[in-house]
């Protein structure tokens, strides 16, 4: 589904991603861990098409198509969804305000008829239940004055509504209380199928108890320096990153 080959990206002449290789197949869950500032959010942003980042090497294919050629909305139309680590506040725009248009633009670009208001309402009611989110939150200005947890829950709600093929969750667990974490994880699991895939970026093994990954990758200084199964997450939880850093720094690049 997603194939990343030797991806390099920089911002303002600072190279952040220094050659990422990764493959995600339909039905899989991948976890990306790694110390602060290692480039996890950068990778997520580049995949979603943030233009501030300069891609200066490598390729990304999504379902065989060159992803890097596409605008952010075209990627969304193909089925990519990024849940932001720091969702932006938009005064005067509510979630319900734009989500129907977003969904219908995705549908129209996939040869489907737009969903009418009645069906859309039914659809979002279902998803609201799934992630236990309140109507009042959805009609407020987006993220304005939302608590950290409310912002994250709203991101997952939008994911549930849009039903993407590939969801990238950037630290969606941070800021969530234990109950909310379970609700969010449960939501992700319910939406999981053989046809879609999830990349979860997280610092905590705890989330991976609920969303069980097929693969765990460690990102360090712009490279994936170690990959393994969910046991790797346990190991990191117990030992921290020092041993990874040492291992990496002692091997010649």
């Amino acid at each position, binding site marked *: 589904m997603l194939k990343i080959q030797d991806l390099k990206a920089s911002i303002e002449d600072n190279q952040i991603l220094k050659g990422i290789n990764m493959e995600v197949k339909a039905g899989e869950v991948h976890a990306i861990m790694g110390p602060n500032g290692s480039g996890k959010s950068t990778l997520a942003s580049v995949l*979603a098409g943030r233009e501030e980042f300069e891609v200066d090497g490598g390729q990304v294919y999504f379902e065989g198509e060159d992803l890097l050629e596409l605008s*952010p*909305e075209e990627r969304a139309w193909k089925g990519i969804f990024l849940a932001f680590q720091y969702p*932006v506040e*938009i005064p005067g725009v509510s979630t319900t305000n734009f989500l129907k*248009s977003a969904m219908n633009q995705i549908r129209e670009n996939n040869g489907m008829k737009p969903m009418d*208001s009645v069906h859309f309402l039914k659809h979002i009611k279902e998803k609201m239940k799934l992630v236990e989110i309140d109507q009042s939150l959805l009609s407020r200005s987006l993220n304005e004055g939302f608590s950290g947890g409310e912002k994250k829950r709203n991101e997952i709600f939008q994911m549930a509504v*849009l039903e993407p093929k590939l969801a990238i969750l950037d630290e969606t667990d941070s800021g969530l209380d234990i109950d909310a974490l379970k609700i969010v994880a449960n939501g992700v699991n319910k939406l999981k199928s053989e046809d879609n895939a999830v990349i979860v970026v997280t610092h905590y093994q705890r989330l991976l108890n609920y969303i069980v990954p097929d693969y765990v990758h460690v990102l360090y200084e712009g490279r994936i320096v170690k990959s393994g199964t969910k046991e790797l997450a346990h190991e990191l939880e117990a030992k921290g990153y020092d041993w990874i850093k040492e291992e990496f720094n002692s091997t010649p690049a």
Partner: protein
Amino acid sequence: MTSTDTDINLIENLAAKVSRSGFNILNDFPQIRDESLNALKVTGLPGNKHEEYKYFNVSRKIKRDYNFPLPAGEAVETGWIRSRLVDDNKGIHIVFINGIYSKEFSNFDTPAEGFEFFLPEDSGQGIKYILDTYAAERQNINKDPYLDLNRAFPNAGYAIRIGKDFDSKPVYIYHFVNSGVQDLLINHTGIVLVEKDAKADLSEIFISENEDHHFHNHNTELITRNGALVNYHLIQETGHDSVNIQNTNIYQSANSRANTYTFSLSGKDLRNNLNILLNEEDCESHLYGLYFISNNDHIDNHTTVDHRKPHCYSNEYYKGIIDDKGMGTFNGKIYVRPNAQKTNAFQSNKNLVLTDTATVNTKPQLEIWADDVKCSHGATTGQIDEEQMFYLRSRGLSEESAAALLLHAFAFDIIDRVELEHLRKYIGSKINSRLGYQFSD
């Protein structure tokens, strides 16, 4: 600034015409006319050295052999006018076309309870009372050459009195200019008296379909008596070769509340001088503005809030969207006079520029002579937020629809403050169709 030979020529030309026009709301006040004419002869029209007209120099453009409004009966194309009225059948609609009152399009014939409307040719106690009240209230505060021009050569006008027993129907006053009249000059004066404890929802709507040059120099004088509440809306949607100058003076008495809403949507040269005089205690005033201009259009908002007495509150909030090669100016003066203690005065101006060629000049000017006051001001100019754009696009909104949504939110922050539903929709739908906004709310 002093007047030049061409100024004198213009003035003499106008003087010759005005004596023939016979259309004149200030007929009975020769001293106002003389005073203004003399001032105008001394100052001339402002060039770009004039501090207040630095960004709005139309003096050369308007040195023409102007025509005054032609008397009614002249064939004018009016097919488009009805569709431009606010869809509000409870409202009083008063229509002027090329400066001339149109009985055909106005729906006001018989005086409503607590509502009186007069044209310059009217006489009698009713209009005399309004004009006398105005003459007493009027203060020569703002020495403005265009206001002098207006008062020296008034060639159109109306007077309105709204009493406490008025059932506060919305009053819409339209100023249409249509094609076919070249170099038209309209020096229009509207005098509105809102009596003690009365409530008035007033709108003045300027629309021109005329792509020929015309110069609309309008002056609205609004007197709000004790305890009165006035919402005054100004909507400007004029042609791309027009000069529109709108002077609005609001004289507030104790406990009165005046809210102004200024919407400038198009016009080659638009200038708004809005002067709020908080003449007595416990007045409140909100000044809202939204300018959204494109092409080569130019909007210049000059506002003055003059706190002259203690315990008054004013809040000013103007937003601007400037597209193409448009230019927006905001100059907001707040005066707090020495004895205006316990004043609260706030001001904010926010601008979005959509292109590299769009420009904004914003300047707050606070002059505070009292010590026990709360004042604040702030101004920003920026572009559409990239983070917000990326967020919305990553959810599947096209670039255009994401921008439309963000601009809509920016603009409706002001539009949503309009209390009259019909008017809010009238303005909102114009903005939405320009933005290509197609979201459900």
